[in-house]
């Protein structure tokens, strides 16, 4: 069993490395503590500028209702639309609400009363949601006054459907619950991809890899000896991450942890395989870093980490199937937040196995002991 000696050596080297053991322990803390604070797409505290051309009690009441909704922060009341627009240009405001003259009069006379919502949509997601919130509140306002004024007029009374929204798994719509599982997997992917690549390319730069190539060790054993240590490290990192998620955010998986480890085992194997493939083509650490960076960036953007895969255009959705991260982030979000089980995710598992076989097969085939 030459594998035993190879593994012994790898672990000794990891232990001796000043940087690596610390990174394995510190990185999960730093990343999980900071990332969710920063990676927050919650749309709240939207800066609102009101241009009230009506100055009536109705318009004041509506503005009052909007600013007490919790979504909006009434920043300024501007005299005219131009000034308000200037506020948007200077990023002092996100939305303008302009109330048309005669707003109250029209309402009382059963005429449609006009308001204009102008949203800064440079950030499309924020712009879209803020205008949706605002028009929702205005609608509520109109139903409210309608109900008040028509209480006694049964002829015009219309029963309203009561719409009850419910947000499953994340009732307060907190972004951290979405981000923590995704960040966890992103970190696992980076560690298990970069480390083996750096290790092998490092041996190339030092010349020790040539010494190994002239020994009778089979390339399969050699590659296995590079995979297993990072597999173990992956498990350690994952465990630390779970502890951090619990300590900092009180997050505990809704589904079984064993299932997560099962998926993670295959996932880490796939990414280490990718690292090995890259190390076979790169000659210097710098090259390996750049190549890995290239793949990791691609995979991350196609993974649905930032925006859900389902809202991508069709061809990007199709392309996202080549990102192992996509499957794993879904797996973790589903198991962690929804308590999905293995059978709900059997196709994800199959895909991950496919990647593991593909990358590691490629790594073994492209590794040349003899040139």
């Amino acid at each position, binding site marked *: 069993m030459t594998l035993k000696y*190879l593994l*012994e050596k790898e672990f000794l080297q990891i232990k001796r490395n000043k940087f690596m053991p610390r990174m394995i322990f510190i990185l999960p803390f730093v990343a999980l503590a900071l990332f969710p604070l920063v990676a927050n797409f919650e749309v709240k505290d939207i800066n609102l500028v009101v241009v009230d051309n009506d100055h009536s009690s109705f318009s004041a009441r509506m503005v009052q209702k909007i600013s007490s909704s919790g979504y909006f922060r009434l920043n300024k009341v501007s005299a005219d639309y131009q000034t308000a627009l200037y506020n948007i240009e200077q990023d002092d405001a996100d939305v303008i609400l302009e109330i048309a003259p005669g707003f109250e009069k029209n309402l009382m006379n059963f005429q449609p009363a006009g308001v204009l919502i102008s949203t800064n949509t440079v950030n499309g997601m924020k712009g879209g949601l803020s205008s949706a919130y605002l028009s929702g509140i205005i609608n509520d306002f109109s139903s409210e006054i309608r109900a008040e004024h028509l209480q006694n007029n049964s002829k015009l009374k219309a029963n309203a459907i009561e719409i009850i929204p419910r947000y499953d798994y994340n009732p307060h719509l907190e972004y951290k619950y979405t981000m923590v599982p995704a960040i966890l997997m992103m970190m696992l992917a980076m560690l298990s991809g970069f480390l083996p690549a750096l290790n092998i390319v490092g041996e190339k730069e030092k010349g020790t890899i*040539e*010494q*190994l190539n*002239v020994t009778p*060790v089979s390339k399969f054993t050699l590659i296995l000896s590079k995979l297993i240590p990072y597999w173990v490290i992956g498990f350690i990192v994952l465990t630390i991450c779970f502890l951090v998620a619990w300590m900092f955010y009180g997050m505990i998986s809704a589904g079984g942890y064993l299932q997560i480890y099962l998926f993670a085992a295959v996932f880490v194997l796939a990414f280490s395989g990718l690292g090995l493939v890259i190390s076979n083509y790169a000659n210097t650490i710098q090259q390996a870093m750049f190549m890995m960076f290239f793949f990791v960036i691609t995979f991350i953007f196609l993974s649905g980490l930032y925006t859900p895969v389902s809202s991508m255009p069709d061809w990007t959705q199709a392309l996202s199937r080549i990102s192992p991260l996509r499957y794993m982030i879904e797996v973790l979000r589903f198991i962690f937040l929804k308590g999905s089980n293995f059978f709900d995710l059997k196709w994800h598992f199959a895909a991950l196995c496919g990647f593991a076989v593909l990358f590691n097969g490629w790594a073994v085939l492209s590794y040349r*002991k003899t*040139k």
Partner: protein
Amino acid sequence: MKKVIEVENLTKAFGRFKAVDQISFEVEKGEIFGFLGANGAGKTTAMRMLCGLSIPTSGKAIVAGYDIRTQPEMIKKNIGYMSQKFALYEDLSVAENIRFYAGIYQVPEIEIAPRTLELLNRLGLENEKDSLVKALPLGWKQKLAFSVAIFHHPGIVFLDEPTGGVDPVTRRQFWEMIYEATDSGITVFVTTHYMDEAEYCDRVSIMVDGKIAALDTPANLKKKFEANNMDEVFYRLARNASRKAD
């Protein structure tokens, strides 16, 4: 005598450039075979082919009874190799390095520890057993690397400029180790730039521009080129080289 290396018209081309151009020679068991040449003459390329690290473009070679083209992994079981670049792990200790390479060459586990001790005693490194290799002076590292290369008793050991950058005393000691190795039946294939070292070899080949320009015992070479020492022999052959040294 039994031949352990047989080379016939061995060629390695990189594109149109022939690094090694149709070389042929034989090495006998127990011999110290010196493989000389200026920088860029093709020594390392030839040696890498013989070790199974590089596939020849054409020609044939048998090393330790195996074809380098079809059975490189069998060759690797029967040779030791010490490369130009120092190849022990700097972040492992002396004993750990020995254990690692011994394990890879499938030296039985129970033999490793006693043989390591014996080796370290012989080298006078018993106190450095647990020191990290990076803390050792270069000369010790080289001696250690050589000992590791022959730890598994290979039939042939390939040494690629083993004494580069080492002081004369240590070089002397190094060659004593090489002699000891040949006494136990190991064939030594060595490249070097030091012409005094060429004198220690049983036979010497000199490569110029990818071809073998001369091959004989040092004494015969000196006679043939009417030279006082190997330095002169080498200079006469190498000054006509068309390839620039790197």
